[in-house]
């Protein structure tokens, strides 16, 4: 991908890719079996500055640009979507706190999140409100000068591990966001049970029962959680997922190209068979397209361009669909080796499906983009 990057960006990417591969390549399959990310992995992410990479330097973060952050997610996505998701959801919550939190939240919690001393989860989805977040039922009421939360959040990534939760709720008919510590006696988390993918991502149900918090735990202002805080967090998340799907595609291509060059069938290397040539060429071309879209999304974010929203949506849409298609093809090509858990492709195959659901399903992205495409076409006429 060097042809799309500056020399500094290429060096940053190479160094991260090698570091993450060397450190975690062997261990990643074990996380899926034990269905959790070990504490030493989380501590390593903090030590390496990955958890605060995208956060401003002024807050103690790495101050990485969107392209530098995206390249980190690409490197993580090659190894483990669960690992990449830890960094992603933490970043979504931390960015929200640092952009829209009070001065006290930014200086206090924000510094802990930037250093990775505390891990954050972001709680949007409910049993009857996923894509349509306006339907969330978790409520905030006022009692004796405090705020009281009641409701249940589901499929919360790293909800089983997080130290602090950014909860989206309704307050007097307006959307709001609040911070709740794990130690709060009104908050409980329960594993979601076995899932198709992201098996090491501690997916949890988060229950809030008469969960009392101080008024100053609110983030932003009532009425702006859904129109501003959620889209900003999701934009960070979609950008990350686009890049992690691109990394997943790279891992698939590497495995397939290596196998097709070595394996013989019917007296010839696999790569000399037309069906394998088709598979490899489609995979590599879609990977290249995913890189272009992801780089364009990152560049738009770095430029502060409002069109970044569409670019990020398109990158996420394409890269995740391509990952779903080609991880399946990679398992097919490697056949019996492809279904082995330790080979990594089986995990990518499962995780790629989940990437097409989280941070906006394929269908929600179409719903968001299509009307604008029609409007833009009308303006060109």
């Amino acid at each position, binding site marked *: 991908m060097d042809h799309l990057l500056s020399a500094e960006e290429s060096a940053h990417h190479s160094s991260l890719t090698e570091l993450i591969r060397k450190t975690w390549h062997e261990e990643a399959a074990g996380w899926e079996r034990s269905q959790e990310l070990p504490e030493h992995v989380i501590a390593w992410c903090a030590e390496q500055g990955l958890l605060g990479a995208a956060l401003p330097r002024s807050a103690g973060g790495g101050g990485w640009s969107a392209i530098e952050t995206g390249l980190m997610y690409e490197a993580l996505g090659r190894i483990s979507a669960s690992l990449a998701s830890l960094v992603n959801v933490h970043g979504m919550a931390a960015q929200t706190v640092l952009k*829209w*939190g*009070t001065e006290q939240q930014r200086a206090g919690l924000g510094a802990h999140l930037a250093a990775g001393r505390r891990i954050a989860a972001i709680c949007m989805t409910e049993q009857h409100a996923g894509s349509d977040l306006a339907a969330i039922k978790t409520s905030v009421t006022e009692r004796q000068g405090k705020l009281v939360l009641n409701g249940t959040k589901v499929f919360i990534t790293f909800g089983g591990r997080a130290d602090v939760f950014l909860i989206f709720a309704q307050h007097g008919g307006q959307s709001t966001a609040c911070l709740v510590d794990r130690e709060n006696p009104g908050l409980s988390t329960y594993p979601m049970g076995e899932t198709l993918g992201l098996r090491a991502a501690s997916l949890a149900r988060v229950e809030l029962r008469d969960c009392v918090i101080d008024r100053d735990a609110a983030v*932003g*202002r009532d*009425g*702006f959680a*859904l*129109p*501003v805080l959620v*889209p*900003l967090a999701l*934009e960070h998340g979609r950008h990350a997922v686009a890049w992690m799907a691109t990394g997943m595609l790279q891992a698939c291509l590497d495995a397939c190209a290596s196998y097709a060059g070595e394996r013989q069938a019917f007296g010839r290397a696999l790569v000399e068979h037309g069906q394998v040539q088709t598979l490899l060429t489609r995979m590599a071309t879609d990977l290249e397209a995913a890189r272009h879209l992801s780089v364009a999304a990152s560049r738009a974010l770095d*430029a*502060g*361009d*409002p069109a*970044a*929203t569409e670019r990020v949506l398109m990158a996420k849409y394409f890269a995740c669909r391509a990952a779903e298609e080609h991880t399946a093809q990679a398992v097919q090509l490697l056949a019996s080796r492809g279904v082995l858990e330790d080979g990594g492709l089986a995990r990518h195959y499962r995780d790629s499906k989940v990437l097409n659901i989280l941070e906006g399903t394929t269908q929600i992205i179409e719903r*968001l983009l299509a*009307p*604008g495409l029609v*409007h*833009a076409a*009308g*303006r060109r006429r």
Partner: protein
Amino acid sequence: MSAPSVQIDQAVIDFLAQYSPGPVPNLDEDLFATGRVNSLFALQLLTFLEKNFQIALAPEDLDLRNFATVGKVTAFVLRKQAQAAGNA
């Protein structure tokens, strides 16, 4: 109405036209209540204001009185620019 005010009105109207079908809004038309824009527009508008007018939005700026209409957006931008000039 001052010249900067008219220019900001027009910049906001031009930006809105990229995302919203329909006629040019009145300066006091509520953009959100009338359903002109989708769920992503508020974030795009804030990004546009920060970049185009070199202002930095703070948590206390999250108030519909600042963004609901073109006229309110213009008044908000002028206020933020005046604040920034005062602090410089």
